[in-house]
């Protein structure tokens, strides 16, 4: 752990891009991941993600405002449609919809304290940290006059499914220097790069940010089947049929044996 941290530290120092060109911040964040990649196998039931890091200082720590850390984890974006049912001639049917060009398939934000206390609305609006703000970033041209009920409904549904979440107090900050956050990724993950962002906050303002990504990929049989279904669709289709035909024949043959 300490070695990994030291590694991450040197790496981050080497790569660190200045956040504010004019006035380099006194505090910088360096961070690492428990694992750079997650493999989705057939037995995949979800995964734990550990994000850890440290605050590097060039000057003594300011005393007036407390330090807070926010960590976000964001899955690959997908196009989606939110539909609303209404009653037409006695039956409930989908009558209106809002299409969203790209919404994150997963979004989780963990923080040392409740976001309302540590993040100013302006900083949230520019960095799009809280769940509703993160979603706003994806809204495209809208087909209905007021899309807000639709996006709110989507938020509720996805929070219920565990795809969008906010965990206040889930970032553990030690001595205002070392921090860690644990995320539990659900089993119904989408393949892609999961973007990780870390924000250092003081007095509601963002002091420094750090970004990295975790690669979530299908592996083994999952990968083989997916690639074949996409790239060799006719072969895959025929194979599915052969599998079905063979299984049907085998069951018939087996039952004949049992009965004789």
């Amino acid at each position: 752990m300490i070695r990994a941290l030291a590694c991450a530290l040197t790496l981050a120092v080497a790569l660190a891009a200045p956040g504010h060109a004019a006035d380099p911040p006194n505090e910088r964040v360096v961070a690492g991941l428990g694992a750079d990649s997650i493999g989705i196998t057939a037995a995949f039931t979800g995964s734990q993600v550990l994000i850890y890091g440290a605050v590097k200082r060039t000057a003594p720590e300011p005393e007036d405002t407390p330090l807070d850390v926010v960590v976000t984890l964001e899955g690959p974006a997908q196009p989606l449609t939110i539909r609303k049912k209404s009653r037409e001639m006695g039956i409930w049917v989908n009558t209106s919809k809002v299409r969203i060009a790209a919404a994150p398939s997963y979004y989780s934000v963990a923080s040392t304290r409740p976001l309302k206390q540590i993040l100013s609305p302006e900083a949230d609006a520019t960095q799009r940290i809280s769940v509703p703000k993160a979603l706003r970033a994806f809204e495209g041209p809208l087909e209905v006059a007021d899309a807000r009920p639709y996006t709110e409904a989507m938020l509720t549904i996805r929070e219920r499914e565990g795809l969008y979440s906010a965990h206040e107090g889930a970032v553990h900050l030690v001595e205002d220097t070392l921090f860690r956050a644990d995320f539990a990724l659900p089993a119904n993950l989408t393949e892609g790069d999961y973007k990780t962002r870390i924000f250092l906050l003081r007095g509601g303002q963002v002091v420094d940010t750090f970004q990295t990504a975790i690669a979530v990929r299908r592996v083994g049989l999952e990968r083989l089947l997916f690639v074949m279904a996409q790239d060799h669709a006719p072969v895959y289709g025929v194979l599915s049929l052969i599998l079905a035909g063979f299984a049907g024949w085998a069951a018939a043959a087996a039952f004949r044996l049992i009965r004789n």
Partner: protein
Amino acid sequence: MQIYLPIAEVSVNVFLLLGLGGVVGVLSGLFGVGGGFIITPLLFFLGIPPGVAVATGANQVVASSVSGVLAQFKRRAVDVPMGLVLQVGGLAGAALGVWIFNRLAALGQIDLVVQLAYVVLLGSIGLLMLQESLRAMRRNRSPRPGARRKQHVHNWIQRLPLKIKFRASGLYISVIPPILIGMGVGILGAIMGVGGGFIMVPAMIYLLHMPTKVVIGTSLFQVITVSAFTTLMHAITNHSVDMLLALFLIVGGVIGAQLGSVLSGRLKAEQLRILLALLVVVVAAKLGADLLIRPADLYSIAVGKQG
């Protein structure tokens, strides 16, 4: 035991899938229906995306139909020439149905059309079958001489050209009515995303006057081709067949189909018809209720570009 499905991108319980496949397999072997009209809604319920559910359901129907038809072949309960004639119509109808489906999708009302088609078709077929088989049962209890089933179909049907002898069914009729029926079922099946067995079985009994014992095997025989065609179309155009999901449904399904065909050999034809009729009515009532009762959540999310 959970398993992650590579195409559906969800993790589900293996035993749930085996059980689901088994139930549908029993229905398939018992009634000669593919079970698409039951498995597809059940897969939605498990959280499988609709496109994947429809395509993979078709694949599982192929397996349970193969398993069922082999058992029926053993009992000489398949009218092969009739099955082939129905398939010719069925494939033409399925191709036409896919085209109609895409036209309706472009108009934006496909969901409602499909739901209403389910309720209306299942409801009316189920009720008609139920009424007819109850009447037949009562007739059997108090047998009257001379009240036998008409041996000859309507006169104009008899006068159509291209007559063929269907020995297993004991029919000598034109191929035109079976081709048209196959086509009609193919169109409806493609629009509703099912093999169409539940429409085909009553059509064979009531329109073609085939004996019930031959109907099941022959229906299974033709369902194989139509659902194989559907599976292939979905695999090629939408990449939505999940082989791993299909595998577990199939393993449950083929065993179920064998049990079902053993059961169907033990039940009387009228009892079989009443059971199928009841099943169809129950599914129709459930789907109808979904349209009438206020849903718990008015909003729903569909992932993907279309919708």
